[in-house]
């Protein structure tokens, strides 16, 4: 049976991290599950954790007055959900809605923040990985903004 | 070349007989004539149709006719028209169709083009015909409209004995001596008390016509002196050439200088009026227009000359790809001098200089090339073309 430690060590997001650090992270981790239709977190709530999605699909949503909830994008198996825990004001920007039943590893962000402040080497490793994710999401978002399939100008 | 071609002398007074011989053989003879202040091509039937004693003064953005002090028939250089007027017409109907219930029927009623003779084809023009032959008959598909008009053309070529300031055929290897396929070639010699043509055949059809001109008074075999005089006259034309284009590595040069600031420079002058493409003897772009009657029972498709300078030339849903004047001038010049080589194995330019003469603001293609050659942003080989 796969242990938490094993899952974290094998996850692509943590590839290349020293085992000392993966042990540390395991200490902040737990297995979680969200039923389809439930919200993993809501916009405005305090952001204290992030998730490695193992199975299922999560939709990032935003509510606007007079409109139904807008689905911005979906994240699936293997992806990392949430980075608002990393930088102040530590507040979620969007809703995370489990579109299908989601199984994930939850990592205690509050705990990890403290450890990163104490150990800047760990902090740098974590920030590098999140920077890469943000870069990919930014490029995808810019591509999405172009609305390439729209007809005309 | 070991084969010597006999050259003959045809007196100007006998020139009409050449015309008659062609007309008798069923050719519609097309040649130069004066109209609207220019020397254009039209049907010629008699000597009086020719621009005898006229010449053209050409410079960038300037064309005027001026009287000569002799009666030379070919004492001009090139006019605004080229032979593509007949081979690749400005307007031609592709098809005519009529509705029949839910379907349509194409009516095979396109008239066949007449048999034609071109009288007065310059070296650059002969080269241009060969260039269009390659584009319209020698590639993956064959244009039947061009093919039908091209087949059986009788060409009487004329060696130039003077050059206009806008000419640069020597740079492009297309003149002033004609080279290529022709039926007859003439060099006109005019002087005090003399007006004759040194004439030679370039094909069996040409030899046959020449033979008919043999009965008295006969075109006599040209003497050594007359042949040399003709040579010298053509040499003189070559030495008069004022403009040059250095075509060494020009393909890679233009591909590598897509972002050269010179394009912005020319864009400030170019009006995108498309004159250059209209007068250019090798430009071949066309568009297709739909024509239908009010009842909607009859429809026609017409093919018309088009120009890459127009705003809509590169339109695809959403807008035009080449929106700016800069991009359109760059497209034309790069196609003409560079891409054409990859597409068809030769330059698209024959050095006739028409684009320089007929540009209302006098843009000079040789000057634009030189400007980029002198300050290349990049002269290294680019991957722009085929790898």
């Amino acid at each position, binding site marked *: 049976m796969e242990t938490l430690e094993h899952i974290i060590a094998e996850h692509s997001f943590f590839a290349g991290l020293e085992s000392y650090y993966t042990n540390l992270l395991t200490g902040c981790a737990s297995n979680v599950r969200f039923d389809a239709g439930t919200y993993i977190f809501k916009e405005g709530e305090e952001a204290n954790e992030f998730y490695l999605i193992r199975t299922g699909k999560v939709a990032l949503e935003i509510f606007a007055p007079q409109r139904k909830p807008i689905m911005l994008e979906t994240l699936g198996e293997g992806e990392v959900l949430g980075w608002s825990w990393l930088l102040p004001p530590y507040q979620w920007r969007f809703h995370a809605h489990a579109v299908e039943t989601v199984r994930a590893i939850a990592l205690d962000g509050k705990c990890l923040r403290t450890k990163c402040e104490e150990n800047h080497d760990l902090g740098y490793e974590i920030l590098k990985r999140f920077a890469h994710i943000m870069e990919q999401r930014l490029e995808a978002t810019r591509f999405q903004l172009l*609305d390439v399939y729209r007809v005309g100008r | 070349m070991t084969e010597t071609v006999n050259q003959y002398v045809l007196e100007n007074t006998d020139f009409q007989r050449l015309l008659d011989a062609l007309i008798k053989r069923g050719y519609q003879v097309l040649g130069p004539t004066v109209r609207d202040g220019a020397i254009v091509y039209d049907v010629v039937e008699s000597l009086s149709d020719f621009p005898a004693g006229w010449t053209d003064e050409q410079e960038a953005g300037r064309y005027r006719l001026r009287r000569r002090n002799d009666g030379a028939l070919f004492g001009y250089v090139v006019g605004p028209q080229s032979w593509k007027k007949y081979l690749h017409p400005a307007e031609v109907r592709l098809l005519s169709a009529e509705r029949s219930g839910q379907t349509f029927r194409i009516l095979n009623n396109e008239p066949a083009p007449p048999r034609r003779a071109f009288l007065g084809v310059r070296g650059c023009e002969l080269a241009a015909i060969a260039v269009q032959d390659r584009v319209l008959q020698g590639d993956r598909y064959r244009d039947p409209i061009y093919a039908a008009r091209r087949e059986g053309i009788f060409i009487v070529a004329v060696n130039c004995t003077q050059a206009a300031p806008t000419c640069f055929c020597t740079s492009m290897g297309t003149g002033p001596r004609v080279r290529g396929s022709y039926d007859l070639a003439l060099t006109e010699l005019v002087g005090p008390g003399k007006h004759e043509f040194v004439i030679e055949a370039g094909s069996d059809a040409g030899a046959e016509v020449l033979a008919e001109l043999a009965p008295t008074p006969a075109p006599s075999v040209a003497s050594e002196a007359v042949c040399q005089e003709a040579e010298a006259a053509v040499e003189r034309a070559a030495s008069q050439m004022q403009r040059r284009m250095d075509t060494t590595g020009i393909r890679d040069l233009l591909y590598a200088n897509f972002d050269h600031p010179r394009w912005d420079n020319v864009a400030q002058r170019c009006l995108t009026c498309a004159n250059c493409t209209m007068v250019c003897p090798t430009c071949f772009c066309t568009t297709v227009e739909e024509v239908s009657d009010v009842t909607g029972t009859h429809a026609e498709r017409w093919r018309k000359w088009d120009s890459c300078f127009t705003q809509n030339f590169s339109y695809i849903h959403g807008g035009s790809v080449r929106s700016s004047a800069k991009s359109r001038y760059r497209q034309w010049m790069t196609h003409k001098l560079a891409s054409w080589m990859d597409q068809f194995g030769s330059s698209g330019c024959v050095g006739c200089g028409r684009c320089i003469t007929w540009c209302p603001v006098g843009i000079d293609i040789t000057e634009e090339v030189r400007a980029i050659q002198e300050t290349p942003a990049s002269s290294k080989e680019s991957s722009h073309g085929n790898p």
Partner: protein
Amino acid sequence: MTMATAATTDPMLPQPYSVRQVIKETADTFTLTLEPPNGAGGNRFQPGQFSMLWVFGVGELPISISGDPAERDRLVYTVRSVGQATLALVSREVGDAVGVRGPFGTGWPVAEAEGRDVLVIAGGIGLAPLRPVIYEVLHNREKYGRLVVLYGARSPRDVLYRKELAAWGRQRETQVLVTVDYGGLSWRGHVGVVTTLFKYARLQPARSLAFACGPEIMMRFVARDLETHGFARENIYLSMERNMKCGIGFCGHCQYGPHFICKDGPIFPYDRMRPLLEKYEL
């Protein structure tokens, strides 16, 4: 190397094909099935080729063939109504005639894909010229490796060939993933640009060919990402588009650098396209 119609037929003369069926795929996109005059068979085409379709008295357009190459008795086209001519085309009724010239152009290098995995990436209407590839691979399954179809549409309402996508996904060694740029409440699928699907594609880039078709910007993002995921440039193919008036290399409108999209393309390998794609207003 393509052959136009028979050597004696003028490639500028349309044949009157007859509309057999019109299917409404989405609000503005329709699939037309055309049958040749006199029920003639032999309508062969390479996946990726296009025809010039003529509406009597209205106009003519280049439209990619989107049908099954094995069905020789018909030609199928999926057309998006974006202007006067396309509107006239999709408004045809059963029995109406549509003039057809072609097929023209180069096709997707399907033969080269034999023995390899095939990755098909489509954006919007770009799925239409790729559908013949999917049919070809599924009809000759043992000749090819894995087939992965990644399809991005604007919104759930713009997804083409829904039922077929589901059916294809059920074939062996075949993976079909669909995403939309803008989701909807009832959409339970992926939301995000088509490049976000790459990470889920199960194939080996080293032994794959990728065929991409969609808006030019989309193809640029796609090609770049494919390279990041281990695809060699010469194994990525794009379908390019430019204005066309003749389809046979004479009108000059479709030139892209030195290439005539109509006869040197529309399918090109990415290594040849890459230096051109970045040039503004080429």
